[in-house]
């Protein structure tokens, strides 16, 4: 798999392990530019993964892994549009990001998200598409979408439902509170917790271990334990679009985007 250097992310092949680095300041907000580069990554992963054993996804920005969807861009782009066009635009974006995350989720390699700091909303959903999450002790995980009158839209709920107990899913989703790494590990979301700044090193050590295994066996094992919840993923897009069509959501987005509060993510 060839290397790529984009404006929001880059990847390189480090001796059979692909390292995908997110590097969009301030905190890897996922808008159109990131989506386009993620699509490019997913295409490369599908067509050129024969010589790859593992993927490590990490962030090069200090604030964290990713703060999720770029809400400012979403608000700015949707403002001039009529209601039907706004929903159509959001649906298209969701379908595209779902294709990317489904490709990563089902990739015939072992995938690791090495996270630190803010891992919120769409950022958590990106991490959840990986097989393992390795977090440094300063990582925080959150689904803040209900604060905006929405649900997570990048496949987060179906993947959480697949991976964790329903009580934990309800806690994350219905309270909108954030979990620290220790709590996330206790809940089964995080597989390894490291000292501050050590998650990438731990992910590299894990990838080196994975490379020792027979490739076909690793693929068979992954397929056996990790079904892709396609039906729930489709329903999530429908529910998100239904909620997004309500005027209250536009008001919440406006309030968030225009807020000068110190903590605008709180309702």
């Amino acid at each position, binding site marked *: 798999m060839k290397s790529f250097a984009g404006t929001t992310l880059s990847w390189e092949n480090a001796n059979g392990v692909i390292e995908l680095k997110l590097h969009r300041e*301030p*905190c890897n907000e996922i808008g159109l530019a990131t989506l386009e580069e993620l699509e490019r990554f997913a295409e490369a992963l599908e067509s050129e993964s024969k010589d790859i054993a593992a993927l490590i996804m990490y962030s090069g920005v200090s*604030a*964290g892994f990713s*703060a999720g969807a770029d809400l400012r861009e979403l608000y700015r782009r949707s403002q001039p549009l009529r209601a039907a066009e706004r929903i159509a635009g959001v649906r298209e974006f969701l379908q595209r990001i779902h294709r990317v995350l489904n490709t990563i989720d089902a990739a015939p390699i072992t995938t690791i998200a090495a996270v630190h*700091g*803010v891992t919120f909303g769409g950022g958590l959903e990106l991490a959840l598409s990986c097989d393992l999450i390795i977090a440094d*002790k*300063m990582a*925080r995980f*959150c689904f803040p979408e209900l604060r905006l009158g929405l649900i997570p839209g990048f496949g987060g709920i179906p993947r959480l439902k697949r991976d964790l107990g329903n009580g934990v899913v309800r806690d994350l989703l219905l*309270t*909108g*509170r*954030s979990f*620290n790494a*220790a*709590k996330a590990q206790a809940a089964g979301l995080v597989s390894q917790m490291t000292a501050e700044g050590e998650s990438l090193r731990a992910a590299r050590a894990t990838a080196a271990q994975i490379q020792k295994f027979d490739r076909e066996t690793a693929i068979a094992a992954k397929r056996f334990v990790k079904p892709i919840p396609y039906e729930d993923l489709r329903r999530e897009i429908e529910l998100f679009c239904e909620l997004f069509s309500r005027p209250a959501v536009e008001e919440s987005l406006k309030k968030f985007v225009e807020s000068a*509060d*110190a*903590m*605008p*993510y*709180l309702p």
Partner: protein
Amino acid sequence: MQSLQEVTEEVLRLAASHFHVPRAQLSPDDDFFKKLGIDSLQALDLLTRIENHFHIEFPDYELQGVSDFRTLAARIQARL
């Protein structure tokens, strides 16, 4: 159980150390957003350090409306 004064002192020390502000410049009634010059992401960082330091869970919605160290310490004490 630690007294409110002890918890407040630990919070002030933690904030001073992490955000590189001399401890002597911080007092319990200071607005920590203004005094430390932090934004929402850095406030989350402080929250995580508090949870790790005191070995507590501190839901971020409990920070709502809290801006001074003394009130923050009282919320922490309620979770100890």
